[in-house]
């Protein structure tokens, strides 16, 4: 299979606002425009990757991701995941994945109690087998922007030990040339992204679709997305 044969579906909730950015980022890499799927749909056409984009689904009212996690489309996404399908949740998408229990942990208010939009340095951790890390070197550093108010990853110590032991932690906030504290939100053990126990579902706070070309200030987002897509093709 070639990259242009890859079927990517992006779920759109009312209040999603990075759906178009992600669609164009994927199209830039695969030359094929992903399908945008409205949240009221009850079924999902066969997809090689389902992406839940960033934004403020349902205005973040009640709790980030709580309402979106109960939208009709999520049953289809859960079915897709149960068949071993790949899912990627970015920012609000990560919050939605934790709400549905598809990845471990929760995301709480930033420790500084403020929204934070800036570049962060990430380090890729050694993980279990996963298409999202297959093409990258463990220990590799990436610079990708964050923009969130509730990105403080939290789980209890036993859970953290367990996911670390399983190789489910993908990214940690790590020193880089980015300005500001290394850990921007108080996340437990500096965790910026995690995998499901089978490695097929990824949740991460940073926005790779915002680091796609030089004028963005960096291309590490494009690199990460491309390696993930290539791994899904092979």
């Amino acid at each position, binding site marked *: 299979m070639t990259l242009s044969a890859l079927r990517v579906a992006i779920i759109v909730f009312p209040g999603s606002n*990075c759906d178009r*950015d992600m669609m164009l980022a994927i199209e830039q890499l695969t030359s094929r425009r992903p399908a945008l799927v409205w949240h009221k749909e009850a079924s999902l056409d066969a997809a090689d990757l389902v992406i839940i984009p*960033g934004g*403020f689904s349902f205005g973040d009212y009640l709790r980030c991701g709580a309402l979106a996690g109960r939208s009709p489309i999520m049953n289809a996404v859960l079915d897709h995941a149960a068949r071993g399908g790949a899912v990627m949740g970015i920012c609000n998408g990560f919050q939605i994945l934790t709400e549905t229990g598809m990845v471990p942990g929760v995301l709480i208010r930033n420790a500084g109690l*403020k*929204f934070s*939009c800036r570049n962060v340095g990430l380090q890729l951790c050694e993980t279990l087998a996963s298409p999202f890390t297959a093409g990258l070197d463990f220990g590799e550093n990436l610079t990708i922007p964050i923009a969130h*108010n509730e990105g403080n990853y939290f789980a209890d110590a036993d859970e953290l030990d367990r996911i670390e032991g399983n190789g489910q932690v993908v990214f940690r906030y790590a020193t880089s040339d980015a300005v500001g504290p290394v850990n921007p939100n108080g996340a437990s053990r500096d965790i910026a992204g995690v995998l499901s126990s089978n490695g097929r579902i990824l949740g991460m706070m940073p926005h790779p*679709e915002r680091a796609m070309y030089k*004028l963005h200030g960096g291309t590490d987002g494009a690199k990460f997305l491309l390696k993930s897509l290539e791994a899904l093709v092979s």
Partner: protein
Amino acid sequence: MTSASDVMTFENAATMGLSRDEWDLINQRLGRTPNLCELGIFSAMWSEHCSYKSSKKWLKTLPIDGPQVIEGPGENAGAVDIGDGLAAIFKIESHNHPSFIEPYQGAATGVGGILRDVFTMGARPVALLNALRFGAAEHEKTRHLVGGVVSGIGGYGNCIGIPTVGGEVNFDKSYNGNILVNAMAVGLANSDRIFRSAATGPGNPVIYVGAKTGRDGIHGATMASAEFSDETESKRPTVQVGDPFTGKLLMEACLELMASDSVLSIQDMGAAGLTSSSVEMASKGGLGMEIDLDLVPAREENMSAYELMLSESQERMLMVLKPDVTETARAIFNKWDLDFMPIGRVTETGRLILLKDGGTACDIPIGPLVDDAPEYDRPHGDAPVRKQLASIDITNDAPISHMLKTMLGHVDLASRRWIYEQYDSQVMADTIAGPGGDAALVRVHGSKRGLAMSTDCTPRYVEADPKMGGAQAVAEAYRNLSAIGATPLAITNNLNFGNPEKPEIMTQIVESVLGMGDAARQLDTPVVSGNVSLYNETDGKAIQPCPVIGIVGVIENVDDAVGNCFVAAGQDIFVIGQGDKTDDGWLGVSIYQQHSRR
């Protein structure tokens, strides 16, 4: 129609901010005494905020034409041609009074309102900027106000998904009791697909869309046209409450509907809500409008005609649709879970007729509401001449390294990173240069072209020399765009001043508008939209005058944009510009001067 209990007197009019002359004029034009609803409509339309009655005479002196101008002042926002068949649509607007009373909601709804002004014209908003003025850093309220305003701006912009790419913040004790919150939005539309507000086609349906109407913000435009006093905080209920989530749905639904060929005219329900939108649409079309207020989607029970017409509930729009597309349009709004309600029709009567509870709640001619709005030539004089300071007049014994640290740490010069990192400056993935530089640069999606923009004013210059200060704001905005390699196209302005009934304040307004006009003419950057905020006073004391300029320009190739940081050691540094050979520059009202001795 006018029940005995509903007969208004001058005392009622006075509480709504109308003068004796204005009250007499209303009675004369109607040939009778207005009822509460009618008086409320007159008072809102004739408020300083809606009628520009003190500033209109001088605003008319500003240059508004140019080959680049597609739409000048008078519509929801201005529009300029940026090439490739595209238009940049932009405007700046103040939300000063509400933001002082309730900083989070005041600032948030300021952002929401200016975004609606832009997408009402058929443009997808691509950038937000702001211009903020707070009281002295050490004042007891400043921390609370800064925190609330910054989170309110971020709260709305971040959620709706439009990047906040630029702005400015200053602190001065004159704003202790009256902060300034000005928000600017920039959008992109196809030049031949710009929507306007003039109602067309008698008989065509008038549709209400968006959020429901509640009792929030009633008579906000009138509040915004009054001075502050110690009792101001009791006006908290007149502050609107924003809902960026509904704003996002409304934006997407409106843009989706506008992409079809269904909308004849459309107007945001901003200041003075249903009143200003219905009156302006009818007035611009030279037509009338009949609305059944019982059909207006209401959030609260038993709302009176007066309350429905004067509510400033957010996230609402009024549209005139082609007669046969109502069901198609309804389906779009249903998809986005928004109210869609035909509430009336365009008429040929030239009158605004409002029905309520089986009777007529209002029947007034549209003409006087707009055309007979008062226009004042308020007394003003010459600006007091201030002694110019040369550097020789100023002594400063402090070591230069100490002064450098003092300046860098000055509240007006220090880094604003802690503020702008609270704004999402990158959503939409087209931001090339975000906050922190001279001007922001946003790529026109799918092309090499970029839109450059900035907001600028230095109030202490305007206070010292209103004319020069007004011109300087335009020149600084122009330079900021030039500095990144962009060609400035046009400006929007936000005139923030004190009470225009005081000659010394009116002098500031007149002089700075004249200075602004001179500079805009010389630099070929016409004014295409703007907003006036007067009566920025607390207990009789005015703010430092602050005529903010928002500027938009274009760069043909974003790869050619220039950054503002030193990129490598060993490179030469140049100072360019016209230095006066006989003098070594100006120091008057500089921050350096504030830290020096005369």
